[in-house]
C-alpha cells in the first residue's frame, strides 16, 4: 500500500509486518516515534506482541536476549547513549547467537548534549558481532528492517542485525512508502538452540582457553557466510517486491574518475552533488555504503575516492575512510563532516570533490581546504 511516512514510522510498519512476539524498548530521542508507534499497534491489536516497557536500554537488550533464546522473534530500537548503555548486552546477544533485530537511529554522543545525526554511536559497536546496515531513504528503512529479520534468523547467520538510520535527517523526514503484504517472506521463527526443558543445556557457562576461541571463530565464519545470505535475501526481496538492494548503492559510477563514498542520508545527498559535478565536466559518481558489517568487497581500482565520515576515531581518523584504505589499498581524501548534525549540503559535497587531496584528511568547517 502506498502511503507517506517518516523513517521512524517506516521501521515501525516493518516491525508490524514482521510480527515479533516480544518487543522490549526504552525511549530516546530521536528514536521515540518507533517505540510509540509500536505501542499503538500493540494496544490497538494491529500487532499481537508482548511489549516490555523496560527501565533502561541495558534491560531492553537483556529482555530481548531472554525472549529470543526463549524461542520467539524479538525487536528493539534505540539511539546514541541508549546504544552505548546496552553495549555489554550487545556483545551478549551476538555471542549468544541470537537473531535480534534492532533499529538504531544514529545520533551524536555527549557531552554536550546533541540529538542530531552522527554515526559514531553505531561504529562504537562495530566489533560486537552484529551485522550493520545503513539506510538512506524511508522506503529503505522499511525494506531493510524486514530483510534484517530474514537475514538474522537464517541458520547460516544466527547473528543480530542493527538497522541504522540517520537521526532527524531520515528518522523525522517524510517520504513515500510502499508497505507490503509480506506473506511467507519471513518463515516462522526457529532457533536451533532455543531453551527446551526436555533437553536441558547450559548456555554461556564458564568456557576455558581451549574452547573460547572456537566460539569466536564461529561468529566470524557466520559473518563471512552472511554476505551470501544477504545477497540471496536481497535478490528474493527484489523478485517479490520489486526493489533491489546490494552491499552498496552506486550512482553514475560506471565511468567515474572520482567516487564519493558515504553512508546514510549523505550517500543520497552525494547523488545530487554528482549531477552538479557532471554538469561541470567532472566525471564523478557516488557509492553509498549500505552494509558496514560484514564489510563488503569493494572494487575501486583506478578511481580517486572521496570519503565522507560522519564519525571519528580520535587519534586515528575517519572510520569509513580508514576501513576503505585498509580493505582496498586506495588512499582516499577523507572528509570529516556532519558531526552532531552539522549541515552539509550537496554543494558542500561537490566542493569536497573539487578540492580533493588524496591521502589527506579535512575537517569540514575547521580546515580551510574546502
Amino acid at each position, binding site marked *: 500500500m502506498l502511503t507517506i511516512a517518516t523513517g521512524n514510522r517506516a521501521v515501525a510498519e516493518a516491525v508490524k509486518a514482521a510480527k515479533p512476539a516480544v518487543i522490549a524498548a526504552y525511549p530516546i530521542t530521536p528514536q521515540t516515534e518507533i517505540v510509540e508507534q509500536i505501542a499503538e499497534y500493540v494496544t490497538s491489536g494491529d500487532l499481537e506482541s*508482548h511489549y*516490555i516497557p523496560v*527501565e533502561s536500554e541495558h534491560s531492553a537488550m*537483556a529482555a530481548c536476549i531472554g525472549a529470543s*533464546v526463549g524461542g520467539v522473534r524479538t525487536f528493539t530500537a534505540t539511539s546514541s547513549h541508549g546504544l552505548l548503555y546496552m553495549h555489554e548486552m550487545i556483545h551478549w546477544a551476538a555471542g549468544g547467537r541470537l537473531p535480534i533485530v534492532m533499529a538504531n537511529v544514529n545520533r551524536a554522543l555527549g557531552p554536550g548534549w546533541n540529538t542530531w545525526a552522527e554515526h559514531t554511536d553505531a561504529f562504537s559497536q562495530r566489533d560486537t558481532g552484529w551485522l550493520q546496515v545503513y539506510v538512506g531513504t524511508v522506503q529503505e528503512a522499511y525494506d531493510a528492517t524486514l530483510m534484517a529479520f530474514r537475514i538474522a534468523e537464517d541458520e547460516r547467520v544466527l547473528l543480530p542485525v542493527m538497522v541504522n538510520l540517520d537521526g532527524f535527517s531520515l528518522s523525522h523526514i517524510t517520504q513515500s512508502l510502499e508497505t507490503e503484504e509480506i506473506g511467507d517472506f519471513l518463515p516462522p521463527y526457529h532457533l536451533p538452540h532455543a531453551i*527446551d526443558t526436555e533437553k536441558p543445556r547450559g548456555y554461556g557457562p564458564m568456557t576455558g582457553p581451549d*574452547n573460547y576461541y572456537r566460539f569466536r571463530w564461529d561468529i566470524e565464519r557466520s559473518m563471512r557466510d552472511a554476505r551470501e545470505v544477504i545477497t540471496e535475501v536481497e535478490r528474493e526481496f527484489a523478485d517479490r517486491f520489486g526493489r533491489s538492494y546490494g552491499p552498496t548503492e552506486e550512482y553514475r559510477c560506471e565511468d567515474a574518475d572520482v567516487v564519493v563514498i558515504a553512508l546514510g542520508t549523505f550517500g543520497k545527498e552525494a547523488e545530487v552533488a554528482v549531477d552538479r559535478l557532471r554538469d561541470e565536466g567532472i566525471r564523478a559518481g557516488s557509492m553509498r555504503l549500505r552494509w558496514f558489517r560484514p564489510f563488503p568487497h569493494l572494487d575501486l581500482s583506478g578511481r580517486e575516492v572521496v570519503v565522507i565520515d560522519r564519525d571519528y576515531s580520535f587519534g586515528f581518523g575517519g572510520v569509513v575512510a580508514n576501513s576503505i584504505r585498509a580493505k582496498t589499498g586506495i588512499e582516499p581524501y577523507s572528509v570529516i563532516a556532519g558531526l552532531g548534525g552539522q549541515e552539509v549540503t550537496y554543494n558542500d559535497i561537490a566542493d569536497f570533490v573539487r578540492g580533493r587531496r588524496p591521502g589527506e584528511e579535512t575537517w569540514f568547517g575547521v580546515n580551510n581546504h574546502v
Partner: protein
Amino acid sequence: MTDISRRSVTNLSAIPKEEYIYKCTSACAGCSSSLCLRYVLKAAGPDSVLVVPACCTSVIQGIYPATAMNVPVYNVAFAAAAACASGMSEAFAATGRDTNVIVYAGDGGTVDIGIQSLSGAFERGANFLYICYDNEAYGNTGMQRSGSTPLGARTTTTPGGKPTAKKDLDRIVQAHNPPYMATACSAYPLDLYKKVRKALSIKGPKFIHILAPCPPGWRYPTEKTVEMGKLAVKTGMWVLYEREFGKLTINGPSKAAMRKPEPLEDYIRGQGRFKNLSPETLDLMRQQVEQNIQRLAREEEGIC
C-alpha cells in the same frame, strides 16, 4: 516422573528424590548456596529454567562442555538477570508455555549491580521468581564487600570491618508490592522448599531472599555451615518470614527466636570476619537486630 505437585511435604523425607544438580560441582566445601539450589530445583521440578548472572553459581555449574545442572541454565551478564528473565517469561507466555523462570543470583548481582533491573521487572509485574542467595559479599571474586555485607564484617575490601550497615534489600523489594516475597536460610531446607513451591504457584513477580553462610568468606570451618545458618536465625540476625499479598507471617523458627533470641555473640564468635569487632560496633549490631525484630513483630500484629 513423580508428580510432585500432589505431594504434601511435612518433612525432609517427603521431598522429591529427583536431582537437578549433580554431584561433583565446582562449589567450595561446605557451600550453602549450592545446597539451597538443590532444594530450589527439587521444588521447581524439571519444567524450569534458571537465569544466572555472574555469581558463585556461574562457577558451580562447571566448565564447558560439562555441566552439573539438569535444567536449562541461561548465564547472563551481571546486571541483567531480572530483565533477561522477564523477556524469557514473556516469550513463554507468548507461546503458551508454563515453564518456571527462576533467577538465581548472588547478593552483589542483586543489591548492587542488579538492583535496577530487579526493580524494573518487579514494577512491570513480570512473571518469574527471583531468588537472591546472600553470602554477604562478592564470594566468587574473593570476598570483596557488597551492599549486603553486614556492619563490622571484614572483607578483602573492608579489611578494617565494614563501616556501614547491610542494605535492607527486603524493604526495597517490599516497596514494589510483589504478590509473594519471603526470606529463607540454608539451614532450613524444608522451609525453603515450601516457599519455592508456594512462590511458583503464584503469578507475577516473586522474591525469595536466602541467607547463605559461606565458609571461606565468613571464615568458619566447612562443617559448621548448617550450624551457622541456625545461629543466624536463633539470634535474630536473620528472620524467616513470608509476605503474601502484603500480609506478613513470621515463620516457626523465628517466632521462637523473636520471643527469646540467643546471644548475638554466639553467632559472631564463630566467624573470622567479625574478629576484633569493637564493643561499640557489637552494640550497634545488637540495636539493629532488635529494631528489625520489633519492626517485623509490629507489622505482623498489624500495628504499622
